[in-house]
């Protein structure tokens, strides 16, 4: 049971990190960025390829992976969102254009095999791979019957620290005030001299960098990197997390992430592993029907 709780905290950290980026974009733009899970996959894939196929050091690969994810945030903004905003397209159009970008990213990784156009990005096609064991330090301890893996333990402080930094930036810096102003009312923010387009681009960069990092942590610590980790592991769960916490609320997304991790682990322990995913979505459905504003709905008015 102790091991299970530890796993819940570990996987909850990754859910939270992923969902914070999701909810940030929703809070500022009122748009679901469906390319977010593809960015998650991309971060992990780039890091793996840099280490295994291009012989870079693990730490440099991580930094570059986050950098590529952040760049992809700019691509999302300039290719998928800004042209539609200029044309005053309905929000559903942005849903489709981000789906299109996600399709491109995943298809490119999927087709990455030796001899194809994308061999520089990925060489294992659709197969799941694991980071080679010597690539990063992974001390393992056995304490009181629990197995503590360094790589999994590290995920928890890293994500907590980043979310605290993000919270501080949002609450107490000039940039954060600008972002919150745009989230509240883009028009009024523009009248106050805030460069709304730049703030939105910044939102997507931050969000995608966090999403990419979540992918790297997931892929490294769980030893599972494939073109489908984003789609299978976090895409819909990310939605569940931001709904549990309240759409657009960052503290909500953090607590929602840990809550979902706990719900899933409890479902496995109490009901068996078959129902794990089903229980999470039943919880999501019930939550939306009974309390659409999420557990932290009181803060919904003060988003982000």
């Amino acid at each position, binding site marked *: 049971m102790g091991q299970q709780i530890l796993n819940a905290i570990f996987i909850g950290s990754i859910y939270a990190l992923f969902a914070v980026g999701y909810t940030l974009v929703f809070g500022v733009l009122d748009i679901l960025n469906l390319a977010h899970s593809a960015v998650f996959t991309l971060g992990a894939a780039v890091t793996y390829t840099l280490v295994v196929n291009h012989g870079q050091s693990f730490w440099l690969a991580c930094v570059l992976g986050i950098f590529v994810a952040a760049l992809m945030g700019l691509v999302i903004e300039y290719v998928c969102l800004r042209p539609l905003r200029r044309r005053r397209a309905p929000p559903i159009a942005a849903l489709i254009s981000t*789906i299109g970008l*996600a399709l491109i990213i995943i*298809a490119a990784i999927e087709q990455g095999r030796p001899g194809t156009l994308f061999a520089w990005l990925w060489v294992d096609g659709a197969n799941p791979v694991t980071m080679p064991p010597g690539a990063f330090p992974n001390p393992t301890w056995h304490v009181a019957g629990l197995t503590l893996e360094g790589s999994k333990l590290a995920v928890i402080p890293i994500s907590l620290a980043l979310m605290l930094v993000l919270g501080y930036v949002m609450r107490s810096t000039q940039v954060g005030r600008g972002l919150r102003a745009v989230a509240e009312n883009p028009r009024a923010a523009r009248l106050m001299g805030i460069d709304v387009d730049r703030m939105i681009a910044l939102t997507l960069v931050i969000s995608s960098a966090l999403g990419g990092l979540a992918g790297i942590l997931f892929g490294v610590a769980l030893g599972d990197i494939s073109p489908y980790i984003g*789609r299978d592991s976090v895409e819909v769960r990310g939605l569940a997390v931001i709904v549990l916490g309240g759409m657009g609320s960052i503290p909500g997304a953090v607590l929602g992430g840990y809550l979902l991790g706990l719900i899933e682990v409890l479902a496995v322990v109490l009901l068996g592993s078959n129902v794990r995913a089903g229980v999470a979505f039943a919880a999501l459905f019930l939550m939306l029907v009974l309390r659409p504003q999420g557990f932290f709905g009181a803060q919904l008015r003060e988003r982000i």
Partner: protein
Amino acid sequence: MDLLTQLFTDPFAFWTSHTLLISQIGINSILASSMFVVLYSGQLSLAAPGFMAIGAYTAVLMDLYWHTPLAVDFAAGTALAGLVGAIVGLPVLRLRGVFLAIATIGFIEALSLGVILNLPITGEGLGLKNIDADPVGGVNIVLISLAVVVYLLWRLTKGRLGYAWTAVRQDELAARSQGIDVPRYKLIAFVISALLAGYAGAAESHLYFILDPNEYGVPRTVQVLTFAVLGGSGNVLGPVVGALFLTTFPFIFKQAGDYIGVVSGAVLIAIIVFRPQGIVGRGGFAFVRPRWWPRPQSRAPSTG
């Protein structure tokens, strides 16, 4: 291009060699029409694959256990999907926009992962073998029902119901102030959409010898949404055109080979960015002009 060449030079050979493709286009068109109904009434419901699954499993199970005639199987599948649609619709339709979308995703995931994969009668993860499937003859049923569906929907959108839906879509508050019973018309749209999706599921199950539970998840719903939005959700024909275009896309662009995913993602983004209202929509065939595109020299005189 050989597909198009064959269609124009030898339509009969095209019909016999691509029967299954034609049937799949028909099924996808009915599904897209089911999405059209909810979008037309201003609701972003993504529940279609869930109702499809109900229709498909009901039809196949009735055929396997009771050997009922095909028409009875289809009717039962459709009716059960409509019934579940009414039950799910009642609590869910209070939600708007993205919240409704997420709740319906929760519904389909809970249904497929929680129920279908855990009930012994549905064959769990293995699915069911449908020995009475008819991949060749099914095409007639599909195309006739598609014509009926499109005609009925066209009549509906031109009638009292259609005007009520348009009013609700454009401004719920204004619609209510005009005496339109908003929840009632929303529920009608939701149930009609569920009936159509259930029928499409039953008809599709009749085409394939194996009923695969993995067909009814989030990727399917994303696909159906793309059909409807890309085709244009303001006109009955829009979803049909979208389904036709996207289903035949991999066959028309055969040269893309393995990169078809990348190409179709790029085309998806291009269409939605340059024509946010969809392929069939207001503005004839005019695309939204990019800013760098030369403007016509002569301008219509201002009418002041």
